[in-house]
């Protein structure tokens, strides 16, 4: 393994510490390693709490702040926090906000769901008003018709952004849940990996691939998908495969407007992502589907894995407005200027 780390067991702590020290205007660490905003949201607005494994930077520890979530409970590398720690995060948000309703976001991975469940039980036992939304989008991990079994991948950024914008506007938790549930069930993501990542804690490669092979459908922890490797081809050919599957699964139709995310998994260059987008834009034009302010870059990463994922989600006027609403976090910013 060739990585700039110190002791593997200190990665989690040092990473969060460096993030917070370099962004004190945005982030602060409190209690037992809870990540919060330096300037809390004004009282009475829904608090959004999230707990997940780290190692996906900037998601979502580096995307916490105005217009996004309020409290994050960082876990270990690719491993979500224990349920009792997520409970601590919920409790912190509840107490500091003078008992404002809490929305717990859970990415659909087994550990996240189980520990989220433990946290919800503990919090509700104490009378804390908390509701959860389980986020999923990966079409490779369960067939159409079983969407709620799908993994949470980069496309869950859409739900984060919309939930965060609505909370900032002072919408009620019920309203947020109603809109975000639709965003979530309407989001479709498919990933491609072209070279593997090493797990920084163990130094082991997540999978191996020949120089001319790629994987379609890997997870955000580099888990291989249900399909074996296929031959590497051009960016356009790879995008043809990915876009076709995503468009078909999500039943995107001529006349639809869509939110678009091309997410780099860590080692893929922006150059490659723009080449991929260039082909995607052609495909969308052919299908008469209109992209709305695409987001392109490394957001939910898998260490130095090379590859990308494509996420699409239908967008009506209200969704577009919320997508454009300001956000100000260390690594995810939308300025008011996005509205033209």
């Amino acid at each position: 393994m060739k990585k700039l780390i110190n002791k593997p067991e200190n990665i989690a702590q040092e990473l969060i510490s460096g993030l917070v020290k370099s962004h004190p205007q945005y982030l602060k660490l409190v209690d037992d390693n809870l990540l919060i905003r330096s300037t809390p949201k004004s009282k009475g607005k829904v608090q959004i709490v999230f707990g997940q494994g780290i190692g996906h930077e900037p998601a979502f520890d580096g995307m916490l702040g105005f217009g996004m979530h309020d409290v994050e409970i960082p876990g270990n590398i690719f491993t979500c926090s224990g349920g009792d720690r997520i409970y601590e995060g919920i409790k912190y948000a509840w107490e500091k906000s003078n008992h404002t309703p809490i929305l717990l976001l859970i990415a659909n991975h087994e550990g996240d769901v189980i520990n989220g469940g433990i946290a919800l039980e503990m919090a509700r036992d104490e009378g804390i008003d908390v509701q959860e939304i389980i986020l999923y989008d990966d079409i490779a991990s369960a067939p159409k018709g079983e969407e709620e079994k799908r993994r949470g991948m980069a496309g869950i950024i859409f739900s984060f952004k919309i939930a965060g914008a609505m909370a900032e506007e002072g919408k009620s938790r019920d309203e947020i849940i109603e809109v975000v549930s639709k965003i979530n069930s309407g989001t479709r993501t498919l990933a491609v990996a072209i070279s593997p990542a090493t797990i920084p804690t163990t130094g082991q490669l997540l999978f191996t691939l020949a120089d001319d092979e790629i994987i379609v459908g890997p997870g955000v922890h580099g888990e291989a998908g249900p399909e074996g490797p296929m031959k590497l081809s051009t960016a356009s050919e790879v995008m043809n495969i990915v876009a076709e599957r995503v468009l078909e699964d999500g039943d995107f139709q001529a006349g639809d407007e869509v939110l678009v995310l091309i997410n780099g998994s860590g080692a893929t260059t922006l150059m490659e992502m723009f080449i991929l987008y260039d082909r995607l834009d052609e495909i969308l034009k052919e299908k008469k589907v209109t992209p709305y302010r695409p987001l392109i870059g490394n957001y939910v990463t898998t260490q130095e894995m090379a590859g990308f994922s494509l996420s699409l989600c239908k967008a009506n006027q209200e969704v577009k407005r919320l997508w454009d609403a300001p956000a100000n976090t260390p690594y995810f910013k939308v300025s008011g200027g996005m509205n033209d």
Partner: protein
Amino acid sequence: MTEINTLSKSNLVEIIERISAEIIDQKDVLSRLDTEIGDGDHGFSMATGFGSVSEKIVEYSQLPIGGMLKKIGFELIKTIGGAAGAVFGTMYTGQASYYDKNLAGKEHLSLGDLSMMYSEALRQVKRRGGANMGDKTMVDALEPAVVSLEQSHLDGASFQEAFSMAAEQARSGAEETRSMVAKHGRAKNLGERALGYIDPGAVSTALMFEVIRDYLLEQRP
């Protein structure tokens, strides 16, 4: 070898220390197994969790048996994290909840007591993780071991006999996960490609029962 008919808290503490040492020792092996079908960190996270428990076990041992097992469980949930933390932690909090409800204050546990504690732990682990036999998880090792403990208790076996059988059952249950398609955990995304690989959580479970067996076999009056 003298037959052991009860276990005290100090026996339990020694067992936990031995389990922690074994998991730490097998860290790399367990992580490698996880690389085949998961995300490759099972050994690392289990070793982190049990390392933390072994640092705190002396402090925990000041509590009654139920309180001590509960602390161990919550420390594992917190420090292992993920699904593994939740299920392996529940293995101990589940035992604690049976003890606190039915055995509170008892200082010497019979095989019957321990088998009931394990049964409750199994029930809670299955509820927490939603896994059943055949799903290629640690339940495939835990359930046969617990069923065997119950049977040994009914047969009037000693602790040594009971845990020798249970360890054997846990190990063969773990081996059988090779022929299973995963229904839980990250391996489930692999579908049939997980065939042939053993489930690392089931191996960890088998290791725990083997440690208990070896500990009991070494005891002298």
